[in-house]
């Protein structure tokens, strides 16, 4: 039995709307009690608790990132489950959902279990998202029941979206039966062939083929239509569509309407989509090449608005590590994606808390409580007694300079390298174990 007392901090717990000085008692892997400052000290002393002084720090539920690429199995040169979770712990995360576009694709209980095995040496909890279709080829749905039993928490073909209406229809039903979300990367890949950035004037000038707004919004609208049909006409369980990394105002508006209509549609926004525009592509900067691409200022602002008004349910990074030599290529040849777990909290504090006055309680909701809830991760995203002792301690006031080379991640493909950012993670506790300390 190991007991930890975190005292003197400012505790934020979105589910209970706690936002004030509170001490926190942890025993083994669970949260035991919250108390007014000083109130838990006697009990803690009796148990011989380790005392952590959180003076001047925010104490919040560990962050949850429901969209990361850990590259294992198959591409250990970019990232491993060990290196990725270590970097995530540094970023304040205690749970990650990893995408199935590994090699082989995670479309079987064997791969799911392999990812979850202790030999992977994960520093924090990993929850695999399994492929929605076999080999992520978009034709035949996988066995959702057995994948869920093996540990999958949702289904997605991520970068290879499910384009066929009939297959998506089946996937929504099967995921609903399994009680998990059907997760879609919304892109009509039939009309984005060869495209490497946002469509528009800048793409024209740079001589690059562009991805239109409609390539994203069209799939979101189609998926919402399928959800509506199943919700109103269906006899089965209510389907849950989760839209990954929304990047366009148009798709976000479709989601807003779907929510108003009472459909179970959720979505995430990535920090780069609320921080940057396609201006970052100038000079053919491959660290600004991602999918969905960085969009216009109007779209960027719409992502912020959606996070502020609740249309966007949560923040997810789409952490996509790539080796240096892979990004040092011709722009159109270079792979999509940037790393994100190290900077997500700081970028969110910078844009949402500082620039748009979002309360930290709300920010913690977007980065912990809501994502845990979307993926059905019980006992996470909260500091309620009996929840897992997943805790992050950070200083929202001080700043740090991000040096990608010092990240435990194996990759350093990020446009934020060298930036000085607010919000310093001081400690991350995953199920009662200190997994990061600065």
């Amino acid at each position, binding site marked *: 039995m190991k007991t930890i007392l975190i005292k003197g901090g400012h505790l934020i717990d979105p589910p209970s709307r706690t936002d004030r000085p509170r001490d926190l008692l942890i025993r083994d892997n669970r949260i035991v009690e919250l108390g007014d400052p000083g109130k838990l000290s006697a009990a803690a002393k009796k148990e011989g608790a380790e005392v952590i002084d959180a003076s001047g720090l925010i104490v919040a539920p560990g962050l949850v990132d429901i969209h990361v690429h850990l590259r294992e199995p198959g591409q250990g040169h970019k990232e491993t489950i060990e290196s990725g979770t270590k970097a995530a712990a540094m970023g304040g995360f205690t749970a990650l959902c990893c995408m199935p576009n590994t090699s082989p694709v995670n479309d079987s209980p064997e791969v799911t279990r392999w990812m979850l095995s202790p030999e992977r040496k994960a520093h924090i909890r990993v929850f695999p998202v399994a492929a929605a279709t076999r080999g992520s080829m978009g034709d035949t749905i996988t066995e959702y029941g057995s994948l869920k039993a093996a540990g999958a928490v949702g289904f997605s073909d991520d970068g290879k979206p499910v384009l066929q209406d009939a297959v998506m229809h089946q996937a929504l039903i099967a995921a609903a039966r399994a009680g998990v979300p059907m997760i879609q990367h919304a892109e009509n890949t039939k009309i984005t062939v060869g495209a490497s950035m946002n469509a528009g004037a800048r793409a*024209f000038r740079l001589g690059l083929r562009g991805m239109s707004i409609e390539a994203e919004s069209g799939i979101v609208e189609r998926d919402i239509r399928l959800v509506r049909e199943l919700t109103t006409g269906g006899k089965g369980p209510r389907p849950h569509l989760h839209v990954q990394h929304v990047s366009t105002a148009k798709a976000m508006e479709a989601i807003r309407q779907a929510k108003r209509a009472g459909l179970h549609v959720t979505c995430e926004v990535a920090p780069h989509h609320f921080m940057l525009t396609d201006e*970052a592509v100038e*000079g053919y900067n491959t660290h600004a090449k991602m999918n969905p691409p960085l969009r216009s200022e109007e779209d960027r602002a719409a992502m912020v608005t959606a996070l502020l008004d609740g249309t966007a349910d949560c923040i997810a990074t789409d952490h996509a590590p790539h080796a240096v*030599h892979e990004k040092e*290529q011709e*722009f159109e040849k270079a792979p999509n994606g940037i790393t994100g777990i190290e900077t997500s909290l700081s970028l969110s504090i910078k844009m949402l808390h500082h620039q748009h006055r979002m309360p930290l309680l709300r920010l913690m909701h977007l980065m912990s409580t809501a994502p845990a809830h979307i993926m059905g991760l019980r006992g996470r995203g909260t500091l309620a007694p009996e929840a897992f002792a997943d805790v992050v301690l950070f200083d929202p006031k001080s700043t740090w300079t991000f040096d990608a080379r010092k990240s435990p991640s194996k990759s350093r493909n990020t446009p934020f390298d060298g930036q000085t950012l607010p919000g310093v993670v001081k400690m991350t506790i995953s199920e009662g174990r200190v997994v990061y300390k600065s």
Partner: protein
Amino acid sequence: MSAATKSAPKPAPKSASKKTATPAPAPKPTAAANGIHPGSLLSITQLSLDEVSSILALADKLANEPLSKHAELLDNRKIALLFYESSTRTRTSFELAAKSLGAMTTLVSDKSSSIEKGESLKDTGLTLRALGAECIILRHNASGSPYLLAQQTGLPVLNAGDGMHEHPSQALLDLRTILSRLGKKQAVDEKTLDGVTICITGDILHSRVARSNALLLPRLGAKVILCGPSQLLPPEAVQLSTGITLERDFDAALKQSQVVMMLRIQKERLAGLQIDLADYQRQFQLNDERYAAYAPNALVMHPGPMIRGLEITADIADGPQSAIEEQVSNGLAIRMALLARALTGGAA
């Protein structure tokens, strides 16, 4: 690269007409642009008008003095021509320019099998540098590839055409041609081409020549009309720069123009597009009849290679108003100047 900000096209006036939307913000030097040799020419937008003037002046000097005067300017300097796409005209022009300044050249091309299968552009560049190359002239089918090469090698890199992006030396030689044929001074400023309308017609979408010209000429006060069918000229082209309008009717465009620049129809690129060549010819070919009716005195230009009888007829291409051959000889002068600038900082 600070010149890039200085020389950026000015934003469009708020009261812009329907056809002139606000241009996309001009490129800003990014962190990734650091380490690029100042002698590089990657995009025409990186040159200030002062730099354009000095390149033109240098080209003038080199073109007019006897060969013996500058034959040792780049004595024994090593220049690599790295050509992933074949191009007789541009390659020969750069090669002759280098040789007439006394430089040694080596050609590495996809045809010569010197480009190792699968070797990255970065590694090829580093290999050339290790072999002593002091400047690389790059032609590549990927837009932006000269940026990568320049960043990775630190050498001066001259963009000899990259993907659908730019062909800056072509824009400079076209400018030299226009200035001399219109009897303008070679020292340019924002007003040099005031009152001059230049029509660029054809496959604008795929044309790096069109982009470089459309990014340069309006900065000298010219009005640029881009003309072509919507498949080859998407509406966002108008935002390349201020001073650009789109016109689908070639006759209407010609009527306003003092210079008409025809582009090659790249048959190989029409595959996925719905273009009826006969119809295209009917609408956009520069022929005697159209020329006489709408622009009887316009200067005729073409970056080549031309397909006589498709986008332009032989009698127009070879007629007295054609500057096509002059463009080629101006190419040599401009490229000599660019090489001197790259390797000596322009101290010719």
